[in-house]
């Protein structure tokens, strides 16, 4: 180890670090340590000039590895890895030590201790670089086909987009028809286009494409393999199981409209319907005016918003319902202007251009009454006629009673019941039951499982417009991956020290990604890691009674030497 030569560079970050951490003292404390050939400070390590200088030092001194003590690796790890590569080093022989977020920014009240802590972190970083192995990214070839699960508007658009890239698509739908949530919808906001026509148009394109295989009444029953090379079992409508090889999977399983429980808001009694049911009434009853509820013509409709949204059970806003309800009321204003419409809302969220729908409803005579979640509207019955009682926040909390012929419960969306599929795909689900992306802004359609993407309402309630956008984003991500031909992954995966492993299988049970299997190898049971599935999460490491598993780049020896460096100078840390 001691014959290695490494360079340590400590960054001022302008003053972000050096205002609180004495970077010169940190430099002095590591200068001359075994293996440290160069110890320098930089004003801004990330600047082009500083990078060029570091590259020339690496080359001149013939360094084997480097440590840069600066900001969070989230910010500049890739910058400095690329720099190390340009200097002829293996990028994994570089360690970034975070003395900004973890020292100067957090300990502004105590410069002395901030400096001491920075020095210890840098010493640990030096150990990491000294123990680092030259690693290469894991490269997997991609199978040129994509599985799309769910054939609603999102799934269909994703399938068509991929098909146009020349990629084979397997589109699996559990129902007997395509179209999902908009299959039976007539007018969709904001354009007023007929949902059924949109579905028909997409369906025609799918049928015409010779590289899309559509499986209706089918479901995913098994998945093996990993990014680039998944093997998926589909149970098709005749009960047979088909095995498919795909490089990526897009999950567009949608959501379902919330259905109030029987009796909740009077649901189940005549005249009390959900938005979906009201839309059904409009499309089936061309002469809606003469639709009789309890023997009366419909003269007054009252909408109650946020049913099944923003409550204890569903803490989220379902996004589409305000606009959908207001769009519906505009259809009614157009067709039957004599019908009075009252909207009982908590907050109207007709964001962006959907505001036009709200303005239109206001100008047509829709009356909006705001209630507080503390005083929810109540529905009573006078005979068979429902009367809504509500306290109006926009006057002085005046108690208002609205005799209504029809009450529309504007319901939100709930996650599709996908327990089985979730277990098969092993993709994370948020606390509300929708599939989670890695990062809502920067990686909005990727899941933590490489090669599995999400789109549409499977990810959370969306308008059809937003569903299409996310599905096409997922198709673009999956398509780019497939067309590249291979995928590169971080090499920080688990490895088995075969001489220690006795094949007990404890690790297999704790791996959340199904990356470990126990195999028989020349008469001895041993754990095998599927590197493409492993996330380097490390659950297997502490569970192993034989210390036979370690994460590459974080080997037992590396970690122990880093801990030793961190606690150096303390006599007995255990007491």
């Amino acid at each position: 180890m001691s014959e290695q030569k490494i360079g340590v560079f400590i960054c001022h970050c302008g003053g972000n670090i050096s205002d609180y951490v004495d970077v010169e003292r940190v430099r002095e404390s590591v200068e001359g340590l075994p293996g440290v050939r160069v110890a320098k400070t930089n004003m801004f390590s990330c600047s082009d000039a500083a990078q060029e200088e570091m590259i020339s030092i690496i080359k001149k001194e013939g360094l084997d590895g480097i440590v840069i003590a600066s900001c969070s690796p989230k910010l500049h790890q890739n910058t400095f890895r690329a720099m190390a590569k340009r200097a002829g080093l293996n990028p994994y022989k570089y360690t970034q030590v975070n003395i900004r977020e973890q020292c100067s920014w957090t300990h502004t009240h105590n410069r002395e201790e901030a400096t001491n802590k920075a020095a210890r972190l840098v010493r640990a970083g030096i150990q990491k670089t000294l123990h680092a192995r030259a690693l290469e990214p894991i490269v997997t070839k991609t199978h040129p086909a994509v599985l799309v699960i769910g054939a609603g508007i999102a799934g269909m658009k994703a399938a068509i987009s991929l098909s146009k890239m020349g990629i084979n698509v397997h589109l699996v739908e559990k129902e007997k028809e395509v179209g999902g949530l908009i299959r039976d919808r007539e007018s969709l906001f904001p354009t007023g286009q007929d949902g059924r026509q949109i579905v028909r148009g997409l369906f025609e394109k799918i049928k015409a494409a010779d590289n899309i295989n559509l499986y209706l009444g089918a479901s995913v029953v098994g998945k093996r393999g990993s990014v680039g090379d998944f093997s998926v079992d589909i149970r098709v409508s005749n009960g047979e199981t088909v095995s498919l090889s795909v490089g990526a999977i897009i999950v567009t399983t949608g959501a379902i409209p919330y259905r109030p429980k029987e009796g909740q808001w009077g649901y189940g009694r005549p005249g009390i319907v959900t938005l979906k049911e009201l839309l059904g009434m409009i499309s089936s009853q061309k002469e809606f005016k003469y639709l009789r509820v309890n023997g009366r013509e419909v003269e007054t409709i009252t909408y109650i918003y946020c049913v099944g949204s923003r409550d204890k059970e569903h803490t989220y806003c379902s996004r589409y319902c305000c606009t959908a309800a207001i769009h519906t009321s505009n259809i009614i204003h157009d067709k039957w202007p004599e019908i009075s419409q009252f909207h009982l809302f908590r907050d109207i969220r007709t964001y962006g251009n959907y505001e036009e729908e709200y303005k239109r409803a206001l100008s047509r005579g829709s009356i909006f009454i705001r209630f507080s979640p503390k005083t929810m509207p109540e529905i009573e019955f006078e005979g068979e006629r429902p009367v809504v009682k509500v306290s109006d926040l926009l006057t002085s909390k005046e108690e208002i009673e609205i005799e209504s012929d029809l009450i529309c419960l504007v319901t939100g969306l709930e996650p599709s019941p996908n327990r089985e599929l979730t277990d098969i795909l092993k993709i994370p689900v948020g606390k509300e039951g929708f599939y989670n992306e890695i990062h809502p802004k920067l990686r909005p359609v990727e899941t933590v499982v490489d090669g599995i993407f999400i789109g549409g309402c499977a990810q959370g309630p969306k308008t059809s417009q937003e569903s299409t956008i996310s599905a096409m984003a997922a198709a673009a991500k999956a398509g780019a991956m497939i067309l590249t031909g291979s995928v590169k992954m971080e090499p920080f995966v688990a490895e088995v020290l075969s001489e220690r492993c006795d094949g007990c299988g404890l690790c297999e049970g704790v791996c959340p990604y199904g990356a470990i299997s126990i195999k028989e190898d020349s008469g001895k049971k041993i754990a095998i890691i599927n590197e493409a599935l492993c996330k380097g999460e490390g659950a297997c490491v502490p569970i192993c009674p034989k210390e036979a598993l370690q994460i590459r780049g974080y080997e037992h020896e590396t970690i122990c030497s880093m801990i030793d460096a961190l606690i150096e100078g303390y006599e007995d840390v255990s007491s």
Partner: protein
Amino acid sequence: MIRVNPKLKKELERYGEFNANQCFSCGTCTALCPMGLKILPREIFRFSLLGSEEKLKEAEDAIYSCLLCRMCEANCPQGVKISENIRILRTYFTERVFKI
């Protein structure tokens, strides 16, 4: 307590361009009213829309105190013709309530 009566609004619409339903209850008008009439004009419009003749009668003084200065109207983000709506209400009162 107000029992909603959609007919009143339809009645008012017969007297002219009653567009109080454009109001989204921001309260700019109330803040600007030089008469400091808290009820004017936002709540009065609300009572009209909900059809509470009784509440409107209670607000009779306020309805007739309006100076028709249009300070509120000039600043209404929704383009509600406030002074015109007040005039319609006064006409309604004269004919239907005072029966003059």
